[in-house]
């Protein structure tokens, strides 16, 4: 192998590595755009006390639900809900996707930051109500045209119920204020 061949091969390896690094970085950046930051306070929930393991599960599943919501409404693909929603909330999101497809619109929920308070935990542990104050950048796009791009602060009343292997969102209802 000549010196020229060696240096060409090295250059190809470096270029490939660079492409992968940039792609990974872009992918990571895209993930961080939609990965919600969530803090939860369960100290005021009652009448049942929220155990530490339950709090951890709720936090994990609620983050997952918002990730799925963001991916679904951006890609207009209801499969991306991944079973995080059920009942009225699932129906509503599927309707959103159907209507967005029809109108050629998609929505992006970027840089989500949630502050969640658990306000009610049922005596038998089969229902928890959360109040979520969330800030995000909402971008609505029609084809290639950005028709809305603003920071939003929203207040959601959320009902979660335990499913087979996770907590699922049964109600996700925005209110003007708590």
């Amino acid at each position: 192998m000549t010196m020229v061949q060696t240096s060409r091969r090295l250059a190809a390896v470096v270029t490939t590595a660079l492409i992968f690094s940039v792609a990974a970085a872009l992918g990571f950046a895209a993930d961080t755009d939609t990965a919600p930051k969530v803090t939860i306070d369960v100290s005021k929930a009652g009448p049942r006390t929220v155990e530490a393991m339950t709090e951890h599960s709720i936090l994990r599943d609620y983050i997952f639900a918002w990730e799925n919501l963001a991916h679904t409404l951006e890609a207009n693909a209801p499969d991306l809900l991944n079973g995080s929603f059920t009942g009225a909330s699932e129906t509503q999101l599927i309707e959103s996707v159907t209507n967005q497809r029809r109108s050629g619109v998609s929505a992006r929920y970027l840089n989500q930051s949630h502050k969640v308070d658990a306000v009610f935990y049922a005596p038998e542990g089969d229902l928890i109500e959360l109040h979520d104050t969330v800030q995000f950048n909402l971008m609505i796009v029609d084809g290639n045209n950005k028709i809305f791009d603003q920071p939003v602060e929203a207040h959601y009343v959320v009902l979660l119920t335990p499913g087979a292997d996770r907590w699922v969102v049964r109600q996700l209802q925005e209110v003007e204020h708590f």
Partner: protein
Amino acid sequence: MSWSINTASPSRSRGLLAGAIALCLAGICYAQTPELRAPSTTVAGSSSSISTTGSGSATFYLIGPGVSSKRDVSLGADVQISSSELQNAGRYLAIICAGICHNAQFFVTPAAPASLTFLVHPSRAPVGLNDVLSGVALPFDQFRNLVLQPAPVKFHLTAGSASILSREISTQDGVAWFRTNSGRTAGPLQVNASIEAAAITSSADVSALRIVQQVAADPCNLRIKGERNANGIVVETEPVRDCAGNPVPDGTIVTFTARGSGDGMSTVDAPLKRGIAKAQMTETGAVVVSAASGVVMGNELHLGAQ
């Protein structure tokens, strides 16, 4: 859309025109801006309208929970929003685009309660236990929006003709709940949650009914009797009841234990049939027979050798 430029001084007007063009190029074309005026809130299932200013055509978008519509509209006219587009509670964005996009936001609030989601636990409860029954009621409107306005929910628990509990609790954050003791008598317990029509300016009451089966608690005063027969000893209980006198359900297991004079011991599990458990034991020597069900022990029966 209207333009008005003061043309009193040619040089000044040229400056103003250049400024206006510069502003327009920068995307701030103020005089051409269509404006939207939306209602601040609307009740779910009501129609509404959004007024626009300006002239010409534009594209109107309505984005809300479960809603995403797009249509061409004429500026200066009201945009009618049908009741079917405003069924889900939450924030709605009205966006109008005519070159530049402008938006207005409004909220849809839930309508009056039309149904109650009522979770009651457990489905079977032993009688006479403290705080064993609980119920959670959540009012929803006809579009499945959680009604967050406080509403008085009446919880009424009846066993036969006897009232166990009657309590009115106002919903807080869309939830009303209770916890109470079970009754003293086995049988179906009707658990009713209702909101009176007058309390929610509705034409009909909203209610939900659940049934809890109250069953006898653990056996009380387990008593046995027995006698020898050709095969050994036959032992049986008297009718097994709980401490409130309710017959313990058939199928409940009673364990009979026979201890001989040496180390010998044998046990037989027998289910209750018609309130009585009966077992055949093969011991022939002198034995002491006892019975137990759950944590309750019965009397001892001393039988001599055959």
